[in-house]
């Protein structure tokens, strides 16, 4: 072992000094030669004879030097360098070919690298918290109400956390918002209200100051707040003296105790502040059945998910047995919680781009085989001059690898340019941004090498046997198979694209249940304690709406608790009058508090009965509207109008509401999320929620009135923050954006694949026509019709297509099941999509066959036969 190492060190040492090693050995040989000559001279030969015999006796000088050189230095490296230089010269001599290959490779490799960058950022890169694999989110199983993964209440949190044996600690948080007032413009801040152990469960420390301690969570303790880095820079000028200072949040003083680092975020990058939860016993009891907490636990080291699930189930079973709480816990690892929904779409993109890369490889391989046929002479000469077959293969492979590495380098540029297009697939909560970093570069290098070997091996093996290559038939069988494979993969890719296209068309073509155009939306969250009084709130709404509706371009304006497609909860248990109670099918319906003009503002359709209007005042009978889904599910056989229901369980003492109208279903969570039952109440009669979203219908462009609207709101309350100002249409567009981008991407991939297929078909058929020139000429000479010839060539092309299509479609059918999660409204085996893809591909192949066919037809038999 030591000897072997010594040898190699010696070789490397000599390789660094090749020239001087060579010179030294030449001198040594000369000296040796002279000594032999001396010997011969001593024996009486003439100088000439002595020298001649000496040379024979010593051996071939060139060969000796070569052997010496091979023993020293690193012949492998030198061979590769030599091959590379030779390859570069060849590429320069055939610029069109090389450029084409490099460009197709750049496209294929670049696209694959970009999609990998996305997959890496969303699915692979660890969260920026210590030991992120131990973080688990905890939910409650309320399937009976339609929420298999529901948030929990503080009561449940306080029952589960001390009793379990598998978590180091668990924290809970909920979304909140505060209005920052005081110096400067009032600002609406996104907040998370967290239990005081939140930062320690995550394992992160603030950049400056401190995180919460248990005391901060005690009711009555002076209020504290942790700032986000962005807020600190933006609002407080990165002043380190902010620690210990007070800020005015929701009209109350809070002391700033810490500032988080610039890259810190958890679940939401918009969070500006973290506030401590201060739960009193009374609060916990009062909100026992309110499900609003997101819970995060850190598993003890060495505890697996299965073990944790078992333990928590045992805890909840015990609680159920003690009649404390009935519902079972659901544990979901943080990664799955955040990225689980988008994972199938990303994997599908990866597969699609992988197919594209394979098609690219097949295309380049086919080209290389054809090109190899043109190098027959050169290779035959090399072999005759003494090169071994393996050396020739080595050289050819080096060429291919060089091409693919250059293609890969250009692919990096493609990836860098296109990766931002994929940001739309990054779900909220993922901190990493898809970009071309060292991991993606490593990946790109690896697939470049793999690609080079994939498309290089077969052509290299084939070309190294020149005796087989001379026949024009060489490789035609192989090239045909490659084209057939390309067609199969292309139809797979294309049918994926058409399925996605249909799915997207169906998704975005849906009636959202309202008219989004020309509507401006914004939020004016009313903070306690200023707006604690019901009366004050109503005054605010009335003032704002009156002022805004008096603006010239405004048609109608109305408040609602939650805009369409921005479903932010607000559901409540519903009990129907005179209905038998089925505990397994209790309904939870969305509760929406509105001002009367809201329906006109978003143009929601009334199906039956009447809308809520100004006449439904505080002292009038309590009325409500329900959507079609709620009508269908609660009174399937009866007329809902005139029926009554109340919020809460049967025992709850809450007022009954009378149904006076049924409105059309409206999309709440997203265009593909099933519609939930929903009910609407007038703001004069309902005080359980305070609406904060304003919708304003205008005659013109919504953006044009934004400034005027702001002024009016500030005129009513100058300290009221205004946030989320945007057109309603943009909410609709945003909800379908991932599907749109995905469709576009798949269509682009398919487009490129079709192009490559057409080139492949053209090349193969072109060669076939050339090969059969004589035969075609004879046919023409004996009177074959133009049509026959066309049929012959195009028929050959379509024959390849037939085989490719069968294989591709069969594979698609087998894989169809995988698709089910990804499509909306379309069956995975939708015949229309497959038919479209197939027909398109047949068209492409037919077109590509046309040019060679025309050439066959144009053949002049006398010229053709004579030239043979």
């Amino acid at each position, binding site marked *: 072992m030591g*000897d072997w190492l*010594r*040898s190699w060190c*010696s*070789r490397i040492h000599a390789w660094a000094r090749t020239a001087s090693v060579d010179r*030294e*050995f030449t*001198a*040594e*040989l000369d*000296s*040796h030669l*002279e*000594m*032999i000559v*001396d010997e011969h001279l001593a024996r009486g030969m003439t100088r000439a004879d002595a020298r001649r015999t000496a040379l*024979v*006796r*010593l*051996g*071939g*000088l060139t*060969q*000796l030097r070569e*052997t*010496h050189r091979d*023993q*020293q230095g690193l012949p492998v490296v030198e061979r590769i360098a030599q091959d590379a230089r030779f390859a570069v010269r060849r590429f320069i001599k055939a610029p069109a070919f090389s450029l084409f290959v490099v460009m197709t490779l750049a496209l294929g490799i670049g696209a694959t690298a970009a999609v990998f960058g996305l997959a890496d950022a969303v699915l692979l890169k660890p969260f920026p918290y210590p030991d992120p694999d131990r973080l688990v989110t905890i939910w409650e199983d309320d399937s009976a109400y339609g929420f298999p993964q529901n948030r929990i209440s503080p009561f449940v949190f306080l029952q589960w956390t001390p009793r379990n044996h598998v978590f180091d600690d668990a924290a809970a948080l909920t979304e909140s918002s505060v209005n920052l007032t005081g110096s400067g413009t009032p600002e609406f801040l996104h907040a998370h209200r967290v239990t005081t152990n939140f930062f320690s469960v995550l394992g992160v420390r603030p950049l400056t100051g401190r995180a919460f301690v248990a005391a901060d969570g005690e009711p009555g303790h002076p209020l504290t707040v942790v700032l986000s880095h962005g807020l600190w820079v933006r609002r407080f000028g990165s002043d380190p003296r902010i620690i210990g200072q007070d800020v005015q949040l929701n009209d109350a003083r809070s002391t700033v105790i810490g500032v988080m680092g610039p890259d810190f975020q958890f679940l939401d990058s918009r969070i500006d502040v973290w506030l401590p939860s201060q739960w009193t016993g009374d609060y916990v009891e009062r909100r026992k059945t309110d499900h609003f907490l997101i819970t995060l636990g850190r598993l003890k080291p060495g505890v697996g998910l299965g073990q944790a699930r078992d333990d928590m189930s045992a805890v909840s079973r015990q609680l159920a047995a003690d009649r404390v709480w009935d519902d079972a816990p659901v544990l979901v690892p943080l990664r799955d919680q955040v990225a689980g929904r988008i994972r199938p779409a990303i994997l599908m993109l990866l597969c699609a781009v992988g197919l594209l890369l394979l098609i690219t490889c097949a295309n380049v391989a086919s080209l290389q085989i054809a090109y190899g046929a043109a190098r027959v002479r050169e290779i035959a000469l090399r072999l005759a001059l*003494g090169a071994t077959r393996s050396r020739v293969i080595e050289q050819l492979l080096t060429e291919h690898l060089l091409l693919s590495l250059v293609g890969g380098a250009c692919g990096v540029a493609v990836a860098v340019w296109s990766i931002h297009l994929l940001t739309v697939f990054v779900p909220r909560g993922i901190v990493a941004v898809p970009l071309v970093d060292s991991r993606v570069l490593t990946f790109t290098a690896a697939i470049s090498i793999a690609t080079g070997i994939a498309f290089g091996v077969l052509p290299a093996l084939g070309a190294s046997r020149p005796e087989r290559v001379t026949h024009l038939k060489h490789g035609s069988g192989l090239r045909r198979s490659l084209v057939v494979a390309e067609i199969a993969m292309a139809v797979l890719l294309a049918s994926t694209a058409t399925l996605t296209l249909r799915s997207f068309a169906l998704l975005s073509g849906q009636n959202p249940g309202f008219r989004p155009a020309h509507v401006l939306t914004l939020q004016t969250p009313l903070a306690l304690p200023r707006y604690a009084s019901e009366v004050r709130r109503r005054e605010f709404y009335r003032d704002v709406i009156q002022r805004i509706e008096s603006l010239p371009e405004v048609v109608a304006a109305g408040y609602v608790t939650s805009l369409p497609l921005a479903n932010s909860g607000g559901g409540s248990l519903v009990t129907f009058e005179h209905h038998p109670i089925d505990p397994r099918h209790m309904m939870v319906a969305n509760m929406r508090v509105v001002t009367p003009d809201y329906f006109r503002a978003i143009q929601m359709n009334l199906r039956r009965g009447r809308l809520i209007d100004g006449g439904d005042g505080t002292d009038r009978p309590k009325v409500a509207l329900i959507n079609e889904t709620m009508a269908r599910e609660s009174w399937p056989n009866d007329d809902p109008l005139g029926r009554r229901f109340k919020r809460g369980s049967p025992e709850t003492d809450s007022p009954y509401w009378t149904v006076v109208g049924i409105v059309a279903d409206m999309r709440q969570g997203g265009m593909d999320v099933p519609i939930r039952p929903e009910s609407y109440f007038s703001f004069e009669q309902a005080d359980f929620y305070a609406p904060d979203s304003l919708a304003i219908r205008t005659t013109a462009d919504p953006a044009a009135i934004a400034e005027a609207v702001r002024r009016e709101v500030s005129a009513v309350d100058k300290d009221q923050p205004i946030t989320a100002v945007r057109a309603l249409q943009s909410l609709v567009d945003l909800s379908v954006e991932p599907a749109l981008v995905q469709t576009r991407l798949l269509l682009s991939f398919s487009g490129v694949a079709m192009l490559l297929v057409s080139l492949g078909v053209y090349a193969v058929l072109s060669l076939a026509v050339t090969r059969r020139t004589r035969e075609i000429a004879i046919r023409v000479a004996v009177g074959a019709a133009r049509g026959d010839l066309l049929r012959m060539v195009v028929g050959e092309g379509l024959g390849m297509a037939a085989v490719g299509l069968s294989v591709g479609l069969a594979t698609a059918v087998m894989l169809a099941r995988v698709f089910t999660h990804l499509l909306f409204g379309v069956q995975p085996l939708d015949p229309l999509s497959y038919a479209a893809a197939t027909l398109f591909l047949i068209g492409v192949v037919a077109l590509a066959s046309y040019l060679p066919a025309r050439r066959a037809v144009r053949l002049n038999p006398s010229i053709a036969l004579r030239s043979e």
Partner: protein
Amino acid sequence: MPQESDRSRSEILQGTLDLIVLKTLEAMGPLHGYGLACRLEQISGAVLQPNQGTVYASLVRLHQKGWIASSWGTSEHNRKAKFYALTARGRRQLQRETEEWQRVADVMARVLAL
């Protein structure tokens, strides 16, 4: 082109040649290429080296493994020549291989005497 059988024979002969070079250097002290080649011619004739130049392949191998060392000097006839000498490692290697050969020879002797 070399045949299969030629190649394997030459591998065996390579090893033997290396051993002979080591032994020769031990017995005769430092030698240059010509000196070694002449000795080899005397010992084995054309079997081990069809021409004198083949000794250099052996010398490079031995040098790379650190069993011999080289230095430029002057020959008997005042020519500049590169001399090769055994190193301590080389001596040890020689001893090991000699013992190995001896063992093989003993066994063969016993077998052939059967």
